[in-house]
């Protein structure tokens, strides 16, 4: 028997995952700035406070470090907190607890504890937030052993990945691109999980492989539609989870297509694309490449405010189309 499927928004799908986890398990609770009656800065927690009460949908003071530490301590001692940071940029204030404590406690203490913590944070540009409300910091967290890093693209995955993240016994950083909150897609009712170690092939194609997560996966799919009209068939792989990265799926695709383009919003250098490119260069798939690997990343600049500048600072559909054309036609 399969669950009925509805069209649901990305934010609603996340809220549904939170509600399911909280209804199933008393230990699960949500905390963060304005997650209560306000419903969250991006209306993700919405009406959860009415449904579960203030003890389980906890408004914190504007204390990102203190809040993160409280979440770590609660996770160590029997609760399962889902901590919302209002913008991923504010993780800079909570970094000590996430990186020095949550990520390391299990290892550092010889396996005697676990930290079942989820930190949710809206990421990315596109809403005029300027330099301190628009960053894409996924690579920072993906660099830290002990963390898992998730970035969903569809409402279906947002719900299933978040339920998997809450089930996970270790800290999971959950990035939600702001431009995706209002997107819609089919989402089954009830509980299901999307495993935290598997990429998804969003579109099959023979001519090149495009790897992109979150809103960049959507842009890559839009680009692939345009490319198809020109006779270029792009395969689009959505990693969904950036750490641990499912490189086997990427390598299999590259082995067939012989061309690889990686698209991501964070600054191009030292980013997610470098890791994926290097992993391919180190492996067997390298021998199948017919062209150099291409990366399309964010500009080496803080995210600017003015709309045309903001747009120019991160990869857009037309940039992906142009890069894919060059790659597919051997002009790279």
């Amino acid at each position, binding site marked *: 028997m399969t669950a009925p499927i509805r069209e649901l928004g990305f934010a609603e799908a996340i809220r549904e995952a939170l509600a399911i986890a909280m209804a199933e398990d008393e230990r699960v609770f949500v905390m963060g700035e304005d997650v209560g009656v306000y419903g969250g800065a991006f209306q993700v927690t919405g009406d959860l406070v009415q449904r579960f009460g203030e003890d389980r949908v906890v408004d914190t003071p504007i204390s990102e470090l*203190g809040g993160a530490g409280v979440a770590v*301590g*609660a996770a160590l*001692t029997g609760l399962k907190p889902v901590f919302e940071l209002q913008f991923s940029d504010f993780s800079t204030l909570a970094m000590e607890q996430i990186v020095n404590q949550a990520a390391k406690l299990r290892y550092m*203490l010889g396996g005697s504890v676990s930290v079942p913590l989820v930190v949710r944070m809206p990421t990315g540009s596109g809403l005029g937030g300027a330099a301190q409300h628009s960053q894409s910091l996924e690579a920072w967290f993906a660099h830290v052993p002990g963390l898992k890093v998730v970035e969903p693209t569809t409402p279906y995955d947002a719900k299933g990945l978040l339920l998997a993240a809450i*089930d996970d016994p270790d800290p999971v950083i959950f990035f939600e691109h702001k431009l995706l909150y209002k997107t819609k897609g089919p989402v089954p009712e009830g509980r299901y999980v999307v495993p935290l170690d598997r990429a998804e092939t969003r579109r099959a194609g023979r001519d090149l492989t495009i790897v992109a997560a979150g809103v960049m996966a959507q842009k890559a799919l839009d680009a692939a539609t345009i490319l198809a009209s020109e006779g270029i068939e792009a395969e689009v792989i959505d990693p969904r989870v950036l750490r641990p990265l499912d490189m086997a799926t990427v390598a299999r695709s590259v082995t067939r297509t012989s061309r690889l383009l990686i698209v991501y919003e964070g600054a191009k250098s030292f980013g997610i694309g470098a890791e994926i490119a290097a992993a391919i260069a180190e492996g067997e798939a390298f021998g199948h490449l017919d062209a150099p690997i291409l990366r399309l990343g964010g500009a080496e600049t803080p995210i600017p405010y003015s709309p045309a500048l903001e747009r120019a600072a991160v990869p857009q559909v037309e940039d992906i189309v142009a890069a894919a054309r060059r790659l597919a036609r051997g002009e790279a």
Partner: protein
Amino acid sequence: MTAARAEDAPPVAVANRPAIYDRVGAGGLREALRRMHLIRRFEETAEDFYVRGKSYGTMHLSIGQEATAVGVCAALGDSDYVTSTHRGHGHCIAKGAEVGRMFAEFLGRETGYCRGRGGSMHIADPAKGNLGANGIVGGGIPIAVGAALSAKRLRTGAVVASFFGDGANNEGAFHESLNIASLWKLPVLFVCENNQYGMSVAFARSTAVASVADRAAAYSMPGVTVDGNDFAAVAAAAFEAADRARRGGGPTLVECKTYRTRGHSRSDRNRYRTKDEIEAWKARDPIERFERELSALGVATAADAASLREAVEREIADGVAFAEASPAPSTAELMRDVHTPAAAAPR
């Protein structure tokens, strides 16, 4: 509770039996003395390991601060939590840890509390409620508040003592944590071991208030300063704070004025303080003082104390032997415990 400045208190005060001793009980007082000796001998032995080139990495000794750790933990049970600091050996022993597994951790052995992955700065004993020493100044304070949130939500009745030094009182984590704990009326004892120096910088050169306890007013919680070298004063403050926390009255900030007679860590050349100052504090040694007091009160005679010290020496010797005979971790297990194995995960 009396607010006493360490420098004002007489070095020996045995005129009256402190009221808190009735609550701790004669057995509890002898056990407290034993644990203070055990902490001292553990650290002296650890220091000796270093001098003889047997240990690796750094360590931070709390010699001179034993009454604070043991006095606070006297008010706690096994189901209560502590969070500790880089100078955490005392808290660990005071909360009931075995010195053998501590020595093993110190020597980086597989039988250590952290299986050799943490070392001196990260010893933890979750089974006894010790959530761990911490290498980040102030790192344990918000974690303690989280543990207190669990205790309140899960109605375990547990309280949490968060140890930190005077250096941590200028970290944002300290201020955010006190505010949250007071706001949510959480059962936390914020225990500042004011040992006068944040590494080399004297308290008065780092902190804009005269006493850390003065900070409590900003967060609407009681703040008390006690002589941290006086077991009775520390225990009285800890019991009162723990009682208040267990009643649902929220957190208390307890400042224990004390002194570390050793340097900050192995690199310390003591350029920032005088020999006279160190000697003056050594004359106020918390263990000698407590031992004399218990003898004067007839709780532990000189002979009792001597046999207790002998037992501590045997425990230390056995602990060292256990640690030295223990294997180093296998490099094949380098990757173990980065994540929780699916089979071991609580669901």
